[in-house]
């Protein structure tokens, strides 16, 4: 037996599947300055991405649909809820100081630095849930989705998602926040359409990919809703650049969806409504997304 095994290895018959960068997104060149003069109307999603709006409701879970009812004007892109831009968001005491600098993981590079750029320009754009009215409400849980274009996982046995996030704002918490669902539907993040076991949302607080990260204090966190226990950052907005407003890297194992030829990754925001007067302080930012298959 030993001889047979040695022969197989030496002949190259046993080999690891190669790693492939299925997709990556750094939002560079998209959107505008989110606290510049004039109404913010420059948001632009990557090609083939889509977001739920008043004219395109998505299924969040079960029979529950998205409910951020913004009237879209101008270029047809949202100005609240999921959007893309650079610099900090306009509201006080929420949002990052600017985009993540390091970019997404590649096949040869694992990005480990979460440094944010102060202000920046369109080369530093990021995805953010802008939680000002109507994207939050002190009495109603708001829900909105932004999703990728169609992705093909049929050639892989394992799928890893990495991205960087920033969650600064006093209103995060109540087991709500940002989640990731992987489904075979372009308009549903529900478990009814999930691309693999556990990858669809089942309620405001459950379902979707398990997201792991190392918090800024060094502790390990595993959750299905970013911001579930409150803000993950104590600094952002117009603060000076410090470790406290560095972006945090999240990782999710999406291997349950491996083998599927048509999937969509949905970023869902479940917005806390739990009393108080500052529901607009829930700007959840995401940047530097990489999806690697093997």
């Amino acid at each position, binding site marked *: 037996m030993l001889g047979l095994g040695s022969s197989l290895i030496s002949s190259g018959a046993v080999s690891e599947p190669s790693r492939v960068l299925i997709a990556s997104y750094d939002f560079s060149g998209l959107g505008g300055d*989110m*606290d*510049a*003069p*004039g*109404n*913010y109307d420059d948001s632009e999603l990557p090609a083939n991405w889509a977001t739920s709006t008043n004219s395109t409701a998505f299924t969040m879970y079960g029979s529950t649909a998205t409910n951020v009812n913004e009237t879209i004007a101008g270029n047809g892109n949202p*100005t609240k809820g999921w959007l893309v831009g650079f610099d900090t968001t*306009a*509201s*006080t*005491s929420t949002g990052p100081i600017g985009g993540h600098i390091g970019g997404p993981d590649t096949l040869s590079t694992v990005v480990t630095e979460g440094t944010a750029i*102060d*202000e920046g320009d369109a080369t530093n754009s990021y995805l953010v849930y802008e939680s*000002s*009215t109507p994207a939050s409400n*002190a009495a109603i849980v708001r829900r909105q989705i932004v999703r990728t274009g169609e992705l093909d996982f049929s050639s892989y046995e394992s799928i890893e998602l990495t991205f960087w996030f920033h969650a600064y704002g006093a209103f995060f918490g109540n087991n709500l926040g940002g989640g990731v669902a992987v489904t075979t539907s372009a308009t549903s993040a529900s478990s009814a359409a999930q691309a693999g076991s556990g990858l669809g949302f089942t309620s405001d607080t459950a379902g979707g990919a398990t997201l792991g990260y190392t918090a800024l204090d060094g502790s390990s966190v595993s959750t299905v809703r970013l911001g579930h226990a409150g803000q993950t950052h104590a600094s952002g*907005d*117009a*603060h*000076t*650049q410090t470790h406290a407003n560095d972006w945090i890297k999240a990782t999710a194992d999406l291997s349950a969806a491996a083998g599927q030829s048509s999937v969509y990754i949905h970023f869902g925001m479940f917005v806390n409504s739990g009393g108080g*007067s*500052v*529901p*607009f302080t829930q700007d959840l930012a995401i940047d530097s997304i990489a999806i690697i298959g093997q």
Partner: protein
Amino acid sequence: METCIRCNEGTMQDAIYRCGSVNYEVVDLNGNVLKTFSTHNLPADDDEIGSNNACKLCSCGKRWS
């Protein structure tokens, strides 16, 4: 003397960044508008209107809090 990290030479003054009735803006300690950052379309009774932070405004236009 505080120095603006962006321009390193501007004059900094104490101010307040706020969500006003129409705009996000920086005002001086007497409420006079020093700089408008963006116009919003929030309802007149929205909770966000009136929210504010103490900040520094540099003569270069950069705000810090």
